[in-house]
């Protein structure tokens, strides 16, 4: 299966990465090469195999549902590109 130009543009939109037309064309070739390579998985019989999501040979732990950290807004906001008071600031979203 091969990705067309419109599909690559749609993926870029979903991924929130702005690509110009020339970049979409280049990316189309590269993504199709990668997808062509992974295509070989089709030949593996996985009937009855449970999917493996992680490398950890363990069950996830439970912990008490309690606040154990926080209450330092200045540290949290120290890297903000723009802040207003104790808030991250972004361009206006609703009129």
């Amino acid at each position, binding site marked *: 299966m091969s*990705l067309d130009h419109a599909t*690559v543009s749609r*993926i*870029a939109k*979903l*991924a*929130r*990465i*702005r*690509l110009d037309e020339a970049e979409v064309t280049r*990316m189309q070739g*590269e*993504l199709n*090469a*990668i*997808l062509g*390579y*992974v*295509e*070989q*998985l*089709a030949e*593996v019989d*996985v009937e009855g*195999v*449970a*999917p*493996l*999501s*992680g*490398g*950890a*040979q*363990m069950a*996830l*732990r439970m*912990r008490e549902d309690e606040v154990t950290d926080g209450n330092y807004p200045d*540290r*949290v906001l*120290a*890297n*903000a*590109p*723009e802040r207003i008071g104790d808030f*991250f600031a*972004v*361009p*206006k*979203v609703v009129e």
Partner: protein
Amino acid sequence: MSLMDMTIAAALDALAAKKVSAVELAEAHVAAVEALNPRLNAFITTTPELALEQARAADDARAKGEAPALAGIPIAMKDLFCTEGVRTTAGSRILEPFVPPYESTVSARLKAAGAVMLGKANLDEFAMGSSNITSGYGPVENPWQRADGAKLAPGGSSGGSAAAVAARMAMGATGTDTGGSIRQPAAFSGIAGIKPTYGRCSRFGIIAFASSLDQAGPMARTVEDCAILLREMSGFDPKDSTSAERAVPDFRAACGRGVKGLRIGIPAEYRVEGMPREIETLWQDGIDWLRRGGAEIVDVSLPHTKYGLPVYYIVAPAEASSNLARYDGVRFGARIEGKDLIDLYERTRAAGFGDEVKRRIMIGTYVLSAGYYDAYYLKAQKVRALILRDFQEVFAKVDALLTPTAPSAAFALGEKMDDPVTMYLNDVFTVPASLAGVPGMSVPAGLDAGGLPLGLQVLGRHFDEETVFAVSSVLERAAGFAHRPGVIAGGAA
């Protein structure tokens, strides 16, 4: 022996015997970084003042008889570990302004153990690469040189760490390994490096690439030095949901165990077509060394090996596309202004990410998207289960596996760049162990015809790094690898 050639083990002895001070070690290494980094670009950020301050503290602690395990040992920290107050970029322009307000667990442990941080080591952007060519801060040059004079890649993604250790700018370094990012650069740079079992080192504060695969580990010039560093880096951390609640063994003691009576598997599927003859020969040497050490050699099969890379190139980008969604120009990192919020996101991510990162985010977004999830992501997870099963079955019969680390020696900067898949093939021998979560170590074992280092890889059972260290130590002693790169601190360039 010159200060710069000392192993960590020897330096700890010299420090304890007051033959050298931590400040002397730090000054010598800071000078080496200043001399060589403009050429090799192994560090994105250097921290000479911090190094000297930490060295003075190490000397003070030692004078009081309170020196912790690594007091005064100068190391490089891969720039993927968040370090409080020291800029952390992950090799990406999108994090150029980022100064973490907190410390990663692994770097905090090393700090508490008295290690001296020389700086933040260069890497492929977000650890996505096998060459260091994708770094947003320029490629690293491998200190080893080829006869034709072409500048070589140090491997990746922990290429800055590998180059720093090989060139004697640092005694050891931290790396992270998602599909081979510790083992392959260690092999390309003639040093040792271990990816421990998934869960052995905390992932807290390591900038995430593919969370089900990412694992920190040490890189150093000897197997024993890796064992010394790993002990301090390891241990349970409640801040990482997949951190293993297990005691940390004395890895250094395991280095002296020998291989007598061990069963070592040789997987048939690692004998790939087109592999250079020197690598075949070196692998056979490794088999002979272990047999001579008293091990029994057993031919084994890991039938799904060839599917490791295609599984990896679905699973890792899928996790990356999710993990990297956080870089949106709002809470930290670089921002490009836009006419509205979506425009701000799209411009920020277009400007901040390099080509390889964009490719992987796009692949990951696609394989997770509605209608394709089952065909790609779910299928890859099922084949991943079969790869794990392969390892579980062979580890019922053998104690460890011996393979080459990489299918070639270091390539030149610019080579293998024709298409992404050619570059991905570098990780063919390292990716399966990452997918299964088992520990793997690369040991420098010989040179190719062009005088470039080659590594052998030892794989072990989950949480049995001790056997990996035992086998690796026997290989290291038998190989007697004493070669040094052309570009080296205090040496001729």
